[in-house]
């Protein structure tokens, strides 16, 4: 009996001293190895008188468990100690820079086109496109702007042949013509894209972007036009309320025609949309001229509707506070980085247009 006690006390004492892992493992095998102290006690069980045997066995098991636990704890303790020591040696200067990465950006015009498409998508418009090089017919004549019409003066046109039959489209309106010639009404489309005018100064670039809108159906009137634009402007500028004004104007391809102004004010040298008493012209629109409908073989008695056109670059400038139009196409690395959008920042309806 005292044997067991002795073993226990002896080892408890040993465990309290500072040990390394191999010393503890040695202890483990001294106790529980084939001929270990505890193991040999177990071998004894058979030789003990039957009356004592149960007690001896139970006491032996208790001591075995106790020692085993203590040794395992000790091992863990030492291992922890060792890891701790190792980690302490491994400490690095975490303020050193991360591995290099590069970040791409989406041009503000592309982002704005996605925003516009997203807004019009919600109210059922689909996106159409047309070529950059257009025929004189599609760009002007079909749009009720025959040769010798003074309205042509407002479009400084780039031509590709001496006969002036091929040109770079001066607006996205020829997409109206292409769309209506290709399909049958109703039509409900927007057409964003590049447009060109041979005009270049601080506020004009020889290339810019427009988005055309066209909605033709049986009973589409100017109220729908107003509603559509009111909706668009609110959504685009992410405002609950805007001030909008329709005023009469003239475009050969619409009748009646209107220009649309939105209210703004200057705050710290920046244009703030939606408030204030000043008016800013942002787009032209109107009811598609019956002559245009006739030109594309749509019966103007049965079908009517509206069209609008607006400058995408200008919308981007207003929304994002960009002052210089020319910089859009100057490809300055600093500018692209500053005004560009993260490619993951995709404008959507459910998430919202901007972050």
């Amino acid at each position, binding site marked *: 009996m005292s044997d067991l006690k002795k073993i226990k006390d002896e080892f408890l004492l040993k465990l309290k001293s500072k040990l390394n892992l191999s010393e503890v493992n040695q202890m483990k095998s001294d106790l529980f190895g084939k001929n270990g102290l505890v193991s040999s006690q177990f071998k004894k069980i058979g030789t003990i008188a039957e009356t004592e045997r149960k007690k001896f066995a139970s006491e032996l098991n208790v001591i075995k468990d106790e020692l085993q636990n203590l040794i395992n704890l000790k091992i863990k303790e030492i291992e922890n100690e060792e890891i701790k020591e190792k980690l302490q040696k491994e400490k690095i200067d975490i303020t050193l820079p991360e591995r290099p990465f590069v970040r791409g950006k989406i041009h503000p015009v592309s982002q704005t086109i996605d925003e516009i498409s997203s807004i019009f998508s919600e109210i059922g418009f689909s996106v159409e*496109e047309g070529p*950059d090089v257009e025929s004189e017919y599609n760009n002007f004549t079909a749009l009720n702007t025959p040769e010798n019409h003074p309205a042509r003066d407002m479009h400084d046109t780039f031509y590709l042949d001496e006969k002036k039959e091929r040109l770079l489209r001066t607006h996205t309106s020829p997409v109206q013509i292409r769309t209506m010639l290709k399909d049958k009404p109703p039509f409900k489309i927007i057409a964003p894209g590049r447009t060109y005018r041979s005009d270049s100064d601080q506020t004009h670039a*020889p290339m810019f972007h427009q988005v055309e809108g066209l909605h033709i159906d049986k009973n589409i009137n100017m*109220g729908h036009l107003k509603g559509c634009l009111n909706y668009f402007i609110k959504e685009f500028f992410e405002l609950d309320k805007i001030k909008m004004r*329709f*005023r009469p104007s*003239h475009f050969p391809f619409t009748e*009646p025609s209107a220009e649309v102004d939105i209210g703004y004010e200057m705050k710290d040298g920046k244009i703030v949309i939606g408030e204030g008493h000043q008016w800013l012209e942002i787009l032209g629109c109107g009811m598609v001229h019956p002559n245009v409908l006739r030109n594309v073989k749509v019966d103007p008695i049965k079908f009517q509707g509206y069209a609008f056109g607006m400058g995408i670059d200008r919308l981007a400038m207003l929304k994002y506070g960009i002052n210089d139009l020319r910089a859009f196409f100057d490809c300055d690395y600093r500018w692209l*980085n500053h005004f560009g959008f993260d490619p993951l920042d995709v404008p959507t309806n459910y998430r919202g247009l901007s972050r």
Partner: protein
Amino acid sequence: MKITFDWLEDHLKTNFKEKNLLEQLTNVGLEVERVQNLSLDKELFKVAKIIKTIKHPNADRLKVCDVNVGEKELKKVVCGAANAVEGLITVYAPPGSIIPKTKTKLVVAKIRGVTSHGMLCSESELNLSDKSDVIIELPSGYKKIIGKSYFSKSKSNLIDLSITPNRPDCLGIRGIARDLAASGFGKLIVFKEKKIKSNIRQPLKVKIKKEKKQGCSIFGSCLITDVKNTESPKWLKNKLISIGQKPISAIVDITNYVMFDINRPLHAYDADKIEKGIIVRNSKLGEEFTALDNKNYKLEDGMCVISDHKGILGLGGIIGGTRSGTELDTKNILLESAYFKPGSIRTTSKKLNLDTDAKFRFERGIDPLSIENGLNKAAILIKEICGGKISKIDIQKIETHKTKIVKFDINLFEKIVGFKISTKEIFKILENLGFKFKKKKNFFELAVPSWRPDITQEVDIVEELVRISGYDKIRIIDPIKERKKSTLNKSQKLFHFLQRSVASKGYLEAITWSFTDSNYNDYFRGTKKEIKIVNPISTELDVLRNSIFSNLIIYMNKNLDRGFKDLSIYEIGPIFTGSKPGEQNTVVCGLSSGKKSRLSWIEKERNVDVFDVKKDVVQTLIEAGHKSEEFFIDSKTPNYYHPGKSGRLFLKKGAELVAAYFGEIHPSITKKIDMKTESLVGFEIFLDNLKIPKKTLNYHKNKFNFSDYQKSERDFAFIVNKDINAQDLINAIESADQNLISNIKVFDVYEGDNIPESQKSIAINVTIQSTEKTLNDNDLENINKLIIETVENKTGAKIRS
């Protein structure tokens, strides 16, 4: 079109103020561009008297004058005019005033060492006449108002309107007044037209030749004899000055006045210089004349000219000639009031590149019924101011004006604009605008006023009505949130996907012109044909781009010059293959310069290389849904790529269309354009050549196949001839057993020691896995052998022992 409230009031009786006017003009579609207070500037110019003059100490021709400007102290003013003498009453401009002619602001300045406080003005400096050699001499009556403003105070601001091309009637003050009156802004004053009372016949014979495409259909004239052309009276001068015009002489001023007042251009000839009579005819090729702008014009066939028996007097409706122009000493004048056809005017002026006030008006359409009224108005004024005798009016015409009739169903109004106005209101508006109407069964017949060439059909009437009743009455109908058709089609989706996919790889998106510099374009043109712009904005933007590279390189270079080194930019957009509509392709083009990991403490820095762009291209295409296992890549690329370090990619072996090119930009190009960078690589992905992968159902993904059986990896090193591509080895390995070989990776390429010079060693790691069972040693040994055998047979490679 410039107007003042004062002038409007000649035609409009109204209780409203100018403030209301501006808003109302905009509301009816006459957009106010600018409002300028001219009188405020001009109030500063004072009547003054020269008290004393002495010679300038440092300049012979200059005098130093003491001038009484109505203040206690006399002002010292340096003046160079010969007529600046003691006692002269003239006009003084103080420092701070803006000289109308030069638009410069006057400051106190030293002139040859003597300080001058202001200036004494000539008529020319005040835009009153061309007289510039002397200062203004005012009659002695002005003595009483020394120190007072020289110009009478005008309450009116100058209002600049942008008149749309469909509204020639509003190029006259009366037309604007009519619109305002119709909109309820006042009442249009009705004049009893003054008519010439004369029994003298107009003696000069006028003939309009009946020719094909004759540009003139009516020619009205009257002769005024024994006039004394003079300076205009003050009221007339002020009128013209108030809208920014410069008075010239009474006769010119009167014709201008009538033009601005009722939009009736007139022309005054010196009748004594007209040889026999007037012939209105088409010009002949090569005819010449000198116009009032002192330029000589060579005419083509068929331009409408006014001529006499000697030759051309002027281009009808565009510009007069010097030969028959009126001068101050002109005695007898012939006044012309005609109708020229807009198309003819426009064709001629375009060809001659001539732009005049008359042309601007005639090409938009002048009221053909205003011919007599214009002549009456002008001739009577001339007689009043310049004296003389007026002849009867002579009118020659080859066509008569027919009043246009438009049928109008009043229900159309609500159908188009979405709100209703009463029939009474409709007729009130139309009547005020000058329409006459007859009621028919279901519609009205409207007679369109002669001054409205723009109104030809029913919808034009609708516009008139909604314009006058107010666009603010159009009520908003909210759009319905409903989508019947998908917003984007497949290729548009691909466009947006690739746009963001490339950006996500570290490229900044650029948007550059669709045109470019032909010199740069030539570097990247390949075999495409050059597409010239006939009228480029500059020689550096003279062709449509055949490749996006030209612009990207130009701008890349600019950015390198700004001191940037490691740049990645891209553009997605059109390139052009021909000058017909549709001869264009959509391309994503990227360009990278410099190094990767420059100055990194942790990564090894290296030049960007062809495998960087290859990665970008391959990854982008995989992301877009294409299978990389099927890609076929070879090294045939256009001449702007480095011939040895570039590749082209097909989506499938045997495919016809190139999906992408990538590689180093040809070193000779970077040298020629002096690119200062360590490395320049680029790629082009051709959107139109990417067949959108077909799936049975759009959203269904392919079946999910995987194997849980143990896989094993084996490494092989083959020695092959240098002309064998890594891809050949990969293809050979793949063909050995498509079922068991699940992955192949090239992990080393070695040339040099221990390898014959014409050969290289390629090390490949192959993953072998079955979908049916765990492979045993025997299976693995067999596949090993098979791989080696196949590769050796197919490529002539030898396994390295």
